[in-house]
């Protein structure tokens, strides 16, 4: 198996990188892929919590890089899916503990053993980001439909394009169709117009995500939630399947437009 290394990044913090990394990893494993998720947010690790594996951490990424353990010893098998693994970040160090070359070497060691290596990038454009992007074959950029998030995403797209990693793809997270219809939120078209990269998926705003994060049970496992469905679709598209993007009703119907006119 030669893995595809996918880095999930955004620039802006809090837009859903960790949630999406966890859920895409789960969804790919549900599709029969052998997956390892790596948390590179050293010092502010979260991927372990979102996946519900925080009690099982013995060794972490920094231990591996500094030679205190073998790579295999630091991998944590998921409690639900046997083909899904996690390499957690360290919590007591910071992003200077690892450099991009070490990340590339680490991923080269993992490539033969997995189908997908999913790297959760920290926010920002400094060392942490550079560590996360260095080994990647593909980059997924996450944004929410908010002006500030899109601004940061644009900066990251510029950096990825300049770094010759191939064109990144976009995931719009936390879209609220009702707010878009009321013109209180940017639409998918607005975001894509500014960022001008291919869209690989749109995840709707879903309260089930917060519940799942707190419980450590990624929502992609839940057959009923709309966000879970979106994550599974994105995983399919990542594997090359042709899954049309769910039409999220973003334009107002006649009644809504009339009432908006009257309100003025």
């Amino acid at each position, binding site marked *: 198996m030669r893995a595809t290394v996918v880095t999930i990044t955004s620039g802006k913090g809090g837009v859903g990188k960790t949630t999406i990394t966890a859920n895409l990893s789960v969804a790919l494993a549900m599709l029969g892929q052998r997956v390892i998720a790596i948390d590179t947010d050293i010092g502010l690790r979260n991927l372990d919590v979102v996946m519900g594996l925080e009690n099982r951490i013995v060794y972490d990424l920094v231990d591996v890089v500094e030679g205190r353990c073998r790579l295999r010893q630091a991998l944590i098998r998921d409690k639900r899916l046997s083909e899904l693994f996690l390499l957690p970040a360290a919590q007591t160090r910071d992003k200077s503990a690892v450099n991009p070359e070490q990340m590339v070497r680490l991923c080269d060691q993992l490539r033969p053993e997995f189908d997908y290596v999913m790297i959760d990038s920290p926010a920002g454009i400094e060392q942490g980001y550079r560590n996360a992007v260095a080994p990647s074959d593909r980059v997924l950029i996450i944004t929410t439909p908010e002006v500030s998030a899109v*601004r940061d995403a644009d*900066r990251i*797209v510029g*950096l990825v*394009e300049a770094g010759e990693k191939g064109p990144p793809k976009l995931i719009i997270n936390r879209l609220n169709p009702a707010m878009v219809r009321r013109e209180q939120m940017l639409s998918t078209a607005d975001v894509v117009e500014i960022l*001008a990269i291919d869209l690989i998926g749109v995840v709707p705003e879903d309260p089930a995500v917060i519940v799942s994060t707190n419980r450590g049970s990624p929502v992609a496992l839940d057959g009923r939630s709309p966000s879970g469905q979106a994550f599974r679709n994105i995983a399919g598209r990542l594997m090359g399947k042709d899954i049309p993007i769910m039409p999220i009703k973003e334009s107002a119907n006649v009644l809504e437009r009339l009432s908006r006119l009257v309100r003025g």
Partner: protein
Amino acid sequence: MTELVTIRGTSEGLIITLGPGSFDTVVGDMEERLAARASFFRGGRVALRVGDRSMSVDQLQTIGAILERLGMTLWAVDGDHPATHVAARELELEVDLRPSAPPTTATSEPIPLEEMAGIVVRRTLRSGQAVHYPGHVTLIGDVNPGAEIVAGGDIIVWGRLRGNAHAGAMGDEQAVICALQMQPNQIRIGSHIARPPDRAWRPKTPEKASVQDGGIVVERWKKSES
């Protein structure tokens, strides 16, 4: 206000004219102005105009060192005083600027916009990216929010201007900013600055921004425009 130092861009590089005043004050002002726009000028050749000021080898070397630190090279010194000629020759600097240069005066005339060099950039500028150039800039693409163009001359955006644009950045108030879709974050011409109206809007036609009556005015591109 008579400026101590004027800085003009030409197709052959920069012409820095030293005005009247003590050497230290004038050179200090020059250094400050250049450092404020360092990325703009980096890599450029500089011709120095000093009028009838008498310059010594030490003084020319001081100026040369300042310029080098900012990534520029002094190639010529134009002055009337014989001592200036001697000092320049000793440092192997040219003493005659090209014939196309205007006559030597203590204060220089502005290089007309029509004679400024220009570049064409064929890509979209993303947030955090910038184009700085001492002449005109034409960009075929968009300028995204968070991106900027700073030009000594005009700025033409054949696309959507959504970021920042500063035309006439070296003090030329005659410069203009044109865009197919003028939706900037902020525009500046010379020392004037303007921001768009608070209500969101989408321009329907290409527009041109220029300084009129002491402020920036944005006008639709009309068919009768000459």
